[in-house]
């Protein structure tokens, strides 16, 4: 075991997979010699050269489509969007081609492709560099969506993503990139569709996504001082979504809060709330609560930006409300 940052862990995963399989290549803006806007590919260009670390013109739709075609004939592309916001120009390709070609070919084609990019609000990145988008992607059959929160999960899930024959979105909140954590020396993979109980507790369950896992853990530390015991679940993959782990927890605690930085309407939190209520109705001692990012484009000024996302204080407040129900 070593302590690595989230970014180092994903770079290790990528390097190992590129060494393992010569069909794996990365495409994006500034991922060649420059090593990626977020350092996703530092040092790899020297090792693998320009065909496998391909700097592109500013054509997000274009290289999304190109990589989809590349994946159909034996390539295993990792598309690096830098900021996930830029994926939007490629939505047509992703929804109508990438996500559908396995099905439309009746399983005779596979689609081994990974899309990665930074998500999330923070650092005054402002409205064009702060999006989340995962519920939109999770709404599309044929796609997998991964939102890891720790270096350990990031490495194991990225390796699974690169080896998967399905299209996978691997989304990295900009605030988790520097988070440190233990990572085994030996190789490991983490399967999709298994939520992690990141903290055990008995009074209520909180499901938190991505960076919100860390914010939630902070509020739990505070609440623990008052003897409040919270169970925290990180779904890790949004599609497939492991509601069994959530249901098991709710059976124990009777209460559920979902903490998500992304907008509320038609969100992952709505889906979780709907499913857990449907299947765990009798276990619930109170209606499920959700807290989400404010329903507004993301503003720039620090006091405005801070006002649009949940933080440890607002999460703790919500937990107390939930317990009082």
């Amino acid at each position: 075991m070593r302590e690595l940052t989230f970014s180092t862990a994903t770079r290790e995963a990528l390097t190992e997979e590129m060494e393992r399989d010569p069909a794996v290549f990365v495409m994006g803006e500034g991922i060649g010699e420059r090593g990626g806007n977020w350092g996703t590919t530092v040092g790899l260009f020297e090792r693998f050269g320009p065909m496998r670390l391909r700097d592109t013109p500013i054509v997000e739709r274009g290289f999304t489509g190109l990589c989809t075609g590349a994946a159909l004939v034996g390539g295993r592309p990792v598309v690096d969007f830098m900021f996930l916001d830029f994926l939007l120009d490629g939505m047509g390709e992703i929804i109508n081609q990438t996500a559908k070609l396995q099905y439309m070919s009746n399983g005779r084609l596979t689609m081994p492709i990974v899309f990665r990019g930074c998500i999330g609000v923070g650092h005054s990145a402002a409205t064009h560099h702060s999006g989340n988008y995962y519920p939109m992607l999770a709404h599309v059959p044929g796609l997998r969506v991964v939102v890891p929160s720790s270096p350990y999960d990031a490495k194991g899930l990225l390796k699974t993503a690169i080896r998967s024959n399905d299209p996978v979105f691997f989304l990295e909140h900009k605030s988790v990139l520097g988070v440190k954590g233990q990572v085994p020396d030996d190789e490991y993979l983490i399967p999709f569709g298994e939520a992690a109980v990141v903290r055990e507790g008995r009074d209520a369950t909180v499901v938190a996504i991505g960076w919100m896992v860390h914010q939630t853990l902070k509020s739990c530390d505070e609440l623990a001082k008052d003897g409040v015991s919270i169970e925290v679940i990180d779904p890790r993959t949004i599609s497939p979504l492991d509601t069994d782990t959530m249901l098991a927890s709710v059976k124990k605690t009777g209460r559920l809060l979902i903490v998500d930085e992304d907008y509320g309407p038609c969100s992952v939190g709505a889906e979780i709330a709907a499913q857990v209520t449907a299947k765990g109705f009798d276990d619930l001692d109170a209606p499920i609560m959700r807290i989400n990012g404010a329903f507004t484009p993301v503003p720039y000024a620090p006091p405005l930006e801070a006002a649009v996302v949940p933080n440890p204080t607002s999460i703790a407040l919500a937990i107390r409300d939930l317990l009082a129900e």
Partner: protein
Amino acid sequence: MLSAPSTSLSTSELLSLYRKMVQIRRTEEQLARAHQSGAIPGACHTYVGEEAIATGVCANLRADDVIFSTHRGHGHALAKGVTPRAMMAELFGRVTGVSAGRGGSMHLFSPEVGLMGTSGVVGPSILLATGAAYTFKLLGTDRVSVAFFGDGAVNNGAFHEGVNMGAIWDLPVLYICENNQYATEVPFASVSKTTDVAERARAYGLPSYVVDGNDVLAVHAAAAEAVRRARAGEGPTFLECKTYRTRSHSEGMRDAGYRTAEEVEEWKNRSPITKLREYLISERLAPEEELARVEAEVEAEVDDARQFATSSPWPDPATVLDHVYSA
């Protein structure tokens, strides 16, 4: 415009081009009738009049080369080796179809013969084909990828982004624009201030030619050189094949108002099939009887395909969720 070179093709190669074009034409005519009778539940865009392009291009390809096609993709599918049976069954929505009934006319898949898909959306074929070429180059193979698309795709961003990437990375890909002069009812001249698509393509710095798309020998020759370049690692080529569809945009749609009956008539007279037929006879390469025999064989093959499609079973609704994911 590239002129038709005196051909170096053998008689049997010429006859096979002829057979393929006739096969496409007869299949389309059957499909049109089937659509009228209600046997085809979805849309049906025929390739009638444009047969020379798919035929001339695909005759240069190996089975492991790949093509990406459009909403008007029946001709490409047949030219790459899909059987009339498997294609017709697909349009009839049967489990014996190339896509097992999941696709219909605009979603034909037969990776076994290198048909990587037709598309209901205009544009993607260009990007997907460029991507397959990227993998071919990455893995050090000499396989070739082909994008077919219409004049309507030329103004779309996919054209711009795709052709440029093919050019700057010297990928083994052919860009085949089937310029039939209209996108549905919209004349190319009304959406472009430049007349030739090839001129637009030249801005990306790749070899780019105008070809008579109703002359299968001209298409074949131009494609042969393009495939040679691609296989040799010399990069992509752009071919604008000037042509015309002589039926309506899609079966059941009106075909008046936006073009004159005379224009349609004129192009019917320039049928690529008639052109090759006359050439074969006048050059004494094949006697009329032999051509008639080919035509009769194709007729029988297509009749059989229709029977096959009609009598094939429907897909089982219980399988509807299969293959959304790979595992």
